[in-house]
C-alpha cells in the first residue's frame, strides 16, 4: 500500500542542531520556560502520568466487576476508586489533553506567531495544573474521596466523611489552569495572527480550540464557585444546598451541570480539530465544507451552554423545562452530525493513505458516531427515564470521551510526533496499536450499552448475577484496551532515540507548522510568514515543491 511519507535521506539527514529542545539546557530551563512548545511537552508528560493513574484505577474497577459480589475490595473502597478514576480522567487528563499539549504546541505556529499572547500565564497554568494534580493525589493517598466525580449534594456536604474539601479545592485550582489556557488561546487567535492569516484561513484545529476556549473561560468559573459553595457548606454550613436551612440541593445540580455539560464539549471539540487536520492530510484534500465545519464548532459551543438540565430529567424539574432542554439537546446534536458527514465527504475524490493517525481518525469517526447517536437516546426525555443512571450512560460517555477524544488525542500525537520530536514513530507497530485499541474499546464498552438497556445501575460494587456475562466481556475487553494504550507509550519513547529522522514535512501537509524545521526553533519562524495561500491548499504546496526542484536542480 502506498504512503505519502517522504523522509529525507537517512544516511545524511540530521535532526537540526538548534531547536527548541536544545536551545537551553538544564532542569531550570524547562521549569522556568516561557516557550509554548516546552510547556506543551511538560503538559504532555504530566497528563500521561495522570492518564496511567486513571487507567490503573479503571483496571481495578473492571477487575472488581468481573464477579457479581463485591469481593476484590470493600464497597467503600470501590466507591473511592471510581470517584478517583472520574476525577483524574476528567479534570487531569481529558480537559487538558489536546488543548494543553497539541493546542499549546501548535496554535501559535499554525497562525504564524512566535508564542502565545501570555507566555508566563501559560507557564503558570501548568503549575496550577500540577498543584491541582498534587492535591488530588494527596486526597487519594490520605484516604480518598467517595462522592463520585459529580460531588452530588447533600452526599458531598453532609454525609461523606472523606477528603471532599481537598479534592474540591484541587479541582478548583486545576480549573484555573484551564481558564488561563482558554484565555491565552482566545487572545492569541484574535491578536497574533500573521499578516494574511484571515479567520477563514485558520486551520479547523484552531477554530475548534477557539470554540473550546470560550467554553473554558465562561464555564469553568461556575464550577469553581460551585465547589467553593460545597466547601463552605462543609466547613461553616452556609446551607445554600441544604433543604433544612431553606437551601436547595437541586440548585447544586443546575450549577454543576452548567459547567459539566459544556465541559464535555471542552473535551471533545479540540479532538474534532485534530480529526479535521488528519483527514485532510491523508486524503490530500481540503476539508469538505470548511465553513460549515468551522461554524459547527461555534454552534456546539453556543448551544452547549443551554442543554445542562438534560442531566436532570428525572430529578423533579418542571415538565416544561424538560421540553425546552430536550429540544435544545436535539439542536446541539446536529452540528456533530454535520462534522461527521463533512469528514466522510472529505475522503470523496481524495487520494487516501492509511498511516496510523488516519487509522485512529477512522476509529474516532466510528466510535464518536455511536457515542453521539446514543446521546440522542438520552436527550430524548421519554427514553432517558429508562436509560439514565445505568450502564447505558457509562457506555455513552466513554464512547464519546474515550472512543472519541482519546482516539483523537492518539491520532494527533502520532500525527505531530515528527514535528514535536523530529523523529518518526515506527509505522507498523503503531498501526497494530490503533487496531488493538479499536477492538479492545468495542469489547469493553459495547456490552455496557446492553447492560444499561437491561437496567444495571452505574456505580454498583455488586450486581445481580444475571449481568455477569456481559461484565466479563467488558473486563476482557479492558485488558485488550490496556495493551493498546501501553504500546504507544513504549514505542514512542523508543522512537525518541531510534526513530527515523522526519525532516520538516514528512506528511506533505499544508499547515504552517509543516513549513518550518522539526523540531521547530524556539522562535518558531525566523521571519514572520506572510500568508498568501489558502487553508489546506495542496496545489500551493505542489507549486512550492516544483519551485524548489527547479531552483535546486
Amino acid at each position, binding site marked *: *500500500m502506498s*504512503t505519502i511519507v517522504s523522509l529525507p535521506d537517512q544516511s545524511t539527514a540530521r535532526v537540526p542542531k538548534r531547536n527548541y529542545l536544545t536551545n537551553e539546557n538544564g532542569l531550570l530551563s524547562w521549569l522556568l520556560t516561557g516557550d509554548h512548545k516546552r510547556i506543551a511537552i511538560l503538559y504532555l508528560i504530566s497528563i500521561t502520568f495522570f492518564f496511567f493513574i486513571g487507567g490503573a484505577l479503571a483496571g481495578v474497577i473492571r477487575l472488581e466487576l468481573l464477579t457479581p459480589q*463485591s469481593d476484590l475490595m470493600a*464497597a*467503600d473502597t470501590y*466507591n473511592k476508586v471510581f470517584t478517583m478514576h472520574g476525577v483524574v480522567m476528567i479534570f487531569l487528563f481529558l480537559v487538558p489533553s489536546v488543548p494543553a499539549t497539541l493546542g499549546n504546541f501548535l496554535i501559535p505556529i499554525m497562525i504564524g506567531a512566535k508564542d502565545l499572547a501570555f507566555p508566563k500565564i501559560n507557564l503558570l497554568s501548568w503549575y496550577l495544573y500540577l498543584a491541582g494534580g498534587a492535591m488530588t493525589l494527596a486526597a487519594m493517598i490520605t484516604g480518598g474521596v*467517595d462522592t463520585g466525580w*459529580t460531588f*452530588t449534594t*447533600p*452526599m458531598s456536604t*453532609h*454525609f461523606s466523611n472523606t477528603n471532599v474539601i481537598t479534592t474540591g479545592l484541587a479541582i478548583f485550582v486545576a480549573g484555573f489552569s484551564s481558564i488561563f489556557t482558554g484565555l491565552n488561546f482566545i487572545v492569541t487567535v484574535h491578536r497574533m495572527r500573521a499578516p494574511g492569516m484571515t479567520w477563514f484561513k485558520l486551520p479547523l484545529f484552531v477554530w475548534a480550540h477557539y470554540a473550546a476556549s470560550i467554553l473554558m473561560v465562561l464555564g469553568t468559573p461556575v464550577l469553581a464557585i460551585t465547589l467553593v459553595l460545597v466547601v463552605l457548606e462543609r466547613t461553616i454550613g452556609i446551607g445554600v444546598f441544604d*433543604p433544612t436551612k431553606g437551601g436547595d*440541593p*437541586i440548585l447544586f445540580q443546575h450549577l454543576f451541570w452548567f459547567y459539566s455539560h459544556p465541559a464535555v464539549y471542552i473535551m471533545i471539540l479540540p479532538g474534532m480539530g485534530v480529526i479535521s487536520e488528519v483527514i485532510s492530510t491523508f*486524503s*490530500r*484534500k*481540503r476539508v*469538505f*465544507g*470548511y*465553513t*460549515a465545519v468551522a461554524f459547527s464548532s461555534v454552534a456546539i459551543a453556543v448551544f452547549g451552554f443551554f442543554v445542562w438540565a438534560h442531566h436532570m430529567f428525572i*430529578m*423533579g424539574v418542571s*415538565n416544561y423545562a424538560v421540553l425546552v432542554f430536550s*429540544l435544545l439537546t*436535539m439542536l446541539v*446534536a*446536529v452540528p456533530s*452530525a454535520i462534522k461527521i*458527514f463533512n469528514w*466522510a465527504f472529505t*475522503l470523496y*475524490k481524495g*487520494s*487516501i493513505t*492509511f498511516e496510523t493517525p488516519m487509522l485512529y481518525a*477512522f476509529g474516532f*469517526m466510528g466510535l464518536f458516531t*455511536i457515542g453521539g*447517536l446514543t446521546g*440522542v*437516546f438520552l436527550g*430524548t*426525555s*421519554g*427514553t*432517558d*427515564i429508562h436509560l*439514565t*443512571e*445505568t450502564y447505558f450512560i457509562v457506555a455513552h460517555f466513554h464512547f464519546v470521551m474515550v472512543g472519541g477524544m482519546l482516539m483523537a488525542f492518539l491520532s494527533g500525537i502520532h500525527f505531530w510526533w515528527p514535528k514535536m520530536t523530529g523523529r518518526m514513530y515506527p509505522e507498523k507497530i503503531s498501526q497494530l496499536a490503533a487496531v488493538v485499541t479499536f477492538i479492545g474499546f468495542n469489547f469493553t464498552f459495547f456490552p455496557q450499552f446492553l447492560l444499561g*438497556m*437491561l437496567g444495571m445501575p452505574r456505580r*454498583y460494587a455488586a450486581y445481580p448475577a444475571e449481568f455477569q456475562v*456481559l461484565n466479563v466481556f467488558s473486563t476482557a475487553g479492558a485488558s485488550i484496551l490496556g495493551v493498546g494504550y501501553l504500546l504507544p507509550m513504549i514505542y514512542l519513547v523508543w522512537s525518541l532515540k531510534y526513530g527515523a529522522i522526519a525532516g520538516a514535512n514528512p506528511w506533505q501537509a499544508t499547515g504552517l507548522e509543516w513549513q518550518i524545521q522539526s523540531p521547530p526553533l524556539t522562535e518558531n519562524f525566523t521571519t514572520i510568514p506572510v500568508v498568501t495561500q489558502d487553508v489546506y491548499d*495542496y496545489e500551493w504546496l505542489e507549486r512550492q515543491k516544483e519551485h524548489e526542484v527547479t531552483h535546486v536542480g
Partner: protein
Amino acid sequence: MGLSPVLWQFLVKWMVNFAIIPPEASKIASQVDALLVFMTLVSLVGLVLVGLLVTAFSILYRRDRNPVATQIEGSTLLEATWTIIPLGLFLVMFVWGSVLYFRIYTPPPNAMNIYVVGKQWMWKAEHPGGQHEINSLHIPIGKPIQLTLISQDVFHSFSIPAFRVKREAIPGRYTTVWFEATTPGTYHLFCTQYCGTQHSGMIGDIVVLTPENYKKWLDSSTSGVSLAQNGERLFASLSCNACHNGQPDSRGPSLANVYGSRLTLASGSPVLVDEAYLRQAILNPSAHITQGYAPIMPTYQGQVSEEGLISLVEYIKNLSSNYRVQQTLNTTELLPEQPDKVPGKTNGAPSAGAQGVAKP
C-alpha cells in the same frame, strides 16, 4: 408504531430472550420500547451510512487507485441535506419522547398513591392501608399506582427497569411517578443514584400480584392502623388540634377540605394546597401563613420523621370535616399531658401512640 401487534410480541420476546431488554411488565414499557427500537434503527442506518461512505471512499479513492486528489470546496446542497434530515429525525424523537415523558410523569387522577421514603440504604414503602415494607413493593396488576417519593438523607433514585420508569427521591421535596403493572411476577428494584457505601445494596423486589393475591397480601400485612389513622394520632399527640380545630375562634385555619383548594397566603400570593405544600407548611410554617392568621405556629422541623409527615399529610388529605378533629381534642383533653417527644413508641408496639415522631 405501525407494526402488527403479533410481530411486535414476537420481537419483544426475542429481545427479552437474548437479554437485550428487560421484560415488559407495565403498560408504558412497550411504548418506551417502541421508541427505543425506532431510535436504534435510525442509529443503525446512520452508522451504516457513515461506515459505507468511509469504506467506499477509502477503497475507491485510495492512493493506489487515485494518485491525485480533486479539490472540492463543498456543497451547499449536501450541507443542507445532512443538516435537515438529522434535525428532522431528532425532532421526531423529541416529540415522541416528550409525549412518553409527560405520560410517565403525569399520574391519572384515579391512581392509588403509595409513599416511598428512601434512606441510606433502604427503601421504605408506606401503603395507604398502613402496610409498611422495606426493600420491596407489593402492587396489583391492572391498577394505576402513583408513587410519592422523598428521601430523608441524600439523593436516591427509584428504578424499576421492567416498568421502564425511574424517579429521583430528593431530600426536602416530593416527586411522583406512576405506572400500571401488567404481568404478575417479581422484578428488580434498584437505587440508581449513587448514595454512598451500600449504594449497590439498596435494591429490592417489585412484587406484582393478581388482584386476588394482592388482597390476600394486604390482609396479611396490615398493621391495623392506616396512614390516615396514624396521622390522626400524630395530629393529636403533637397538639396540632389545639389550633387547627375548625372552631370559629381557633388560632389556626380549619384544615377540613383544604387539600386541593387554593389558598391566599399572608404575602398575598395564591397557592395550590398539595402534598408538598402541606409538608412545607408543617416544617416551615412562617413562610406559609394563611391570610388572616397570625404567624404563631412553631416549626416541626426535626420533630416529625418523613414517615410521620406522610401520615399527617394523608390525614389532612382525607379530612372532609372537623368532626374527627374535635373528637381527638376531646380524647387529648382526657389524657394526661403528652410530652413533645414520645420515646419508644416507634418500635412497633401496638399502642394508641402514633408512629412517626422523630427519634431524639
